[in-house]
């Protein structure tokens, strides 16, 4: 025979489960509103393409600038055509420097994507609530000297050439 206390406990459990189910539905809805698949397939894919274009454009510009500089430095200064060589190559250098405008716009677009990812992550953290415990599984698998490879330092992070020179004095 069901006692009143058992019935109350069952009802409480039922309500807990119901509340949990509602929370899961709500969380799914909110995660869906963040449109993670659109972020991955459109925004991030586009940002990666933009970055590839930036690398390509800077390489092309560097090569053009160096081609022109090499032509000027190897030209015969006594040649009557020398001023034309300088003029032509200076124009090429100015033209090549236009890459900065285009890469600047592309970098702006990548920054927008990163801002979008940042705001999505912020929304996700809000959704998970203050009690959410993060699992730190970020492991650096590198060993030995490979751990020394970190690429160019950000401003204020690395040491200057002067400081390096002191280590060789």
């Amino acid at each position: 025979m069901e006692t009143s206390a058992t019935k109350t406990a069952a009802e409480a459990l039922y309500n807990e489960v119901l509340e949990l189910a509602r929370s899961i539905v709500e969380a799914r809805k909110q995660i869906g509103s963040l449109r993670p698949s659109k972020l991955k397939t459109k925004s991030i894919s586009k940002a990666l393409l933009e970055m590839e274009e930036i690398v390509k454009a800077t390489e092309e510009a560097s090569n053009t600038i160096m081609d022109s500089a090499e032509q000027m430095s190897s030209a015969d200064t006594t040649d009557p055509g020398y001023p034309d060589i300088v003029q032509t190559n200076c124009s090429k250098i100015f033209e090549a420097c236009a890459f900065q405008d285009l890469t600047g716009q592309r970098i702006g677009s990548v920054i927008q994507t990163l801002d979008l990812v940042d705001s999505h992550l912020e929304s996700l953290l809000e959704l998970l609530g203050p009690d959410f415990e993060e699992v730190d599984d970020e492991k650096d698998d590198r060993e030995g000297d490979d751990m020394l490879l970190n690429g160019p330092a950000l401003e204020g992070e690395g040491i200057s050439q002067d400081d390096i020179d002191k280590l060789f004095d």
Partner: protein
Amino acid sequence: MTDEKKDMSILIVDDYKTMLRIIQNLLNEVGFRNIDEATDGVTALESLRTRPYDLVISDWNMEPMTGLELLKTVRADNSLKKLPFIMVTAEAKTENVVAAKQAGVNNYIVKPFNAATLRSKLTAVIGEF
């Protein structure tokens, strides 16, 4: 610059062709005319074992063999161990410089660098030119 210095065999090692070209041009500008290139440590080592060189100017971050591995291999090789070696790299933390120095690098240039810096390190390693 003396003919002896002009004729020095220099091997520059970098996986970025643009950087190879920049260093090559800077070396040409000061008068060096005997310059070879390699795009990683493995091919650099092959070149070093094929013909004699007077100086190596190498990047650090390359695959399949890094500049530091190349330096250590050079220092461990009896026929190459005294070869002057300058590291030119974007790795600019104290531990990088210390590791390179412990491995026997003669000088260390951090990217981006200018012609004056390259020139002063060359002077420090190979003497006035």
